[in-house]
């Protein structure tokens, strides 16, 4: 992902990350990858076109929120549920983010390619309890976008 930068936040209390990306789409996808890296040491990655690993499944997701940063939180919360409850790991995603107007002013649609959770092969690290609002940020920055997320582990 050219132009995308991930900086892990290294605090005694818990974990999180800062992201810089050229577009909102790249930032939301980088956040997906960063979340997976907190959950597992060897997360699955996108397959080459035409390749389909055993158990792979894809589906569409739509989310809405009143603000961009809250949409990012909802996105990560949704992915957490997918991994930790459904046992599906989003190996790749093609998120699209747009202003939709109305009280839920921001909308995300994404096509997720998922594979089954495999704690051994993906080297499971441990649960994430939740994505917090503490210090949550998503703002325009230097022609692109910058986000900060803190997780409760």
């Amino acid at each position, binding site marked *: 992902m050219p132009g995308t930068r991930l900086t892990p936040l290294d*605090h005694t209390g818990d974990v999180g990350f800062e992201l810089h990306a050229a577009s909102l789409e790249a930032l939301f996808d980088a956040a997906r990858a960063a979340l997976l890296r907190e959950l597992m040491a060897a997360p699955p990655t996108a397959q080459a076109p035409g390749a389909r690993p055993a158990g792979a499944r894809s589906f569409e997701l739509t989310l809405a929120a009143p603000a961009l940063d809250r949409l990012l939180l909802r996105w990560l919360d949704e992915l957490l549920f997918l991994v930790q*409850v459904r046992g599906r790991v989003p190996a790749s995603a093609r998120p699209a983010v747009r202003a939709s107007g109305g009280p839920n002013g921001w909308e995300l649609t994404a096509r997720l390619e998922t594979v089954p959770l495999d704690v051994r092969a993906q080297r499971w690290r441990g649960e994430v309890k*939740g994505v917090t609002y503490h210090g949550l940020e998503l703002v325009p920055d230097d022609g692109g976008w910058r986000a900060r997320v803190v997780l409760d*582990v």
Partner: protein
Amino acid sequence: MPEAARARPDFEPDAARRYRIRRYGAMRVDAVFYASSAVLEMLEQEGYASLGQLVNVASLPGIVTPALAMPDLHWGYGFPIGGVAAFDPERGGVVSPGGVGYDINCGVRLLASSLTEAALAPRAERLADALFRRVPSGIGSKRTVARLSEGELERLLVDGASWMVAHGFGDPDDLAHTESGGHLAGADPGQLSPRARLRGLPQLGTLGSGNHFLEVQVVDEVYDVAAADAMGLAVGKVTVLIHTGSRGLGHQVCTEFVERFLNALPRFDFDLPDRQLAAAPVASPEGRAYLGAMRAAANFAFANRQRITHSVRQAFEDVGLAPRDHGLRVVYDVAHNNAKLEKHGGRTLLVHRKGATRAFPPGHPELPAAYREVGQPVFVPGDMGRASYVLVGTEGAMRDTFGSSCHGAGRRLSRHRAKREARHRDLTEELRRLGVVVRASSPGTLAEEMPEAYKDVADVVDTVHEAGIGRKVARLRPRLVVKG
């Protein structure tokens, strides 16, 4: 990372190991925290971020003086860990899901046994294996505990630990030695989303990851013989400490209600210094809904620790120790993440404890008969290489901290740094040399939770003891550790 105030708030010594931040700016009340010189040093190193969070808590509506932090305080989300805040529902007091935390009713349960260390030694490895097998960590674990039906879950969310005992997973005496009898009245399972139930159903009887653990320990020092006698603790005796909470069910409740409270905020007449402090008046529909959901999640946590207690007893039996041999019984089960309506100074207040333990004094009517004369047991887990402590609540705690005390050691190293420092080390072997047998779901967990990652819990406990908000009873050394 923390967004709280970076500048050092003005604070002054107020009493032994106690410091006061006088009300300023948006604060509605003073803030008080407890600290040793080591804690003061830590606060400076973190740029006083957790004190900034305490100042933010002191600005919430209906807070009753003072906003408090115990000596294990450190930076949290919104509320500092180690925070205690009481709100008066009659004066617009609020409830805040962030003031309870994601892991609703997380807590510790201590079991005493009739075994001595000598009886444990020849079975140590086999018992560690049996405990690891019997008590799964949770997500991704191939080891499972029987699932409940939706209907059974509904009853359990109302009845808490007593559901488990009624279904053969424990003894009525276990309930008599659990905070609030192992269930909170006023639970409203109808407030739980399908998603919260889905997260909870497969996780009953599981430990979870992070700092949750199961330890077999040996009492190695007694400071207060009368209190230790009341708890059945004596030097050389084997104990078991269980630290876990409401698992994904509680996490989901917190996530959803923070969101719901933020959406409702424009209708409430106050501003928030931090969105993670999202709050609603206790008397509002949102406040009542959260309390109903929180109590249901709390009951799930009590039931979870009860189910794990049953698994621990089974594990001891797996290695040839029949119930009459191990004699495992609950000393007490105490929570450190919740909000409870309690009487203080003639008023009914909603006391939030986030990483703080209730510590009621001798004579309090809520204590079981066995502890009426000595005070409520308080358990303070340390790290897996050093020790944990047993304390009792005091009159000082009731007078100064809404009947609250500390809950643990607090981290010294970040998880990433702990992993870096553990690289090229054999932590399992290092712990074995300290006399500790460990089983962990992954090497990463072991590295993140290694002893040096935590501050010395003895400093926290001594601070509490010297400040008079808890009294030392006994020290417990780890012998077998199971990490999720």
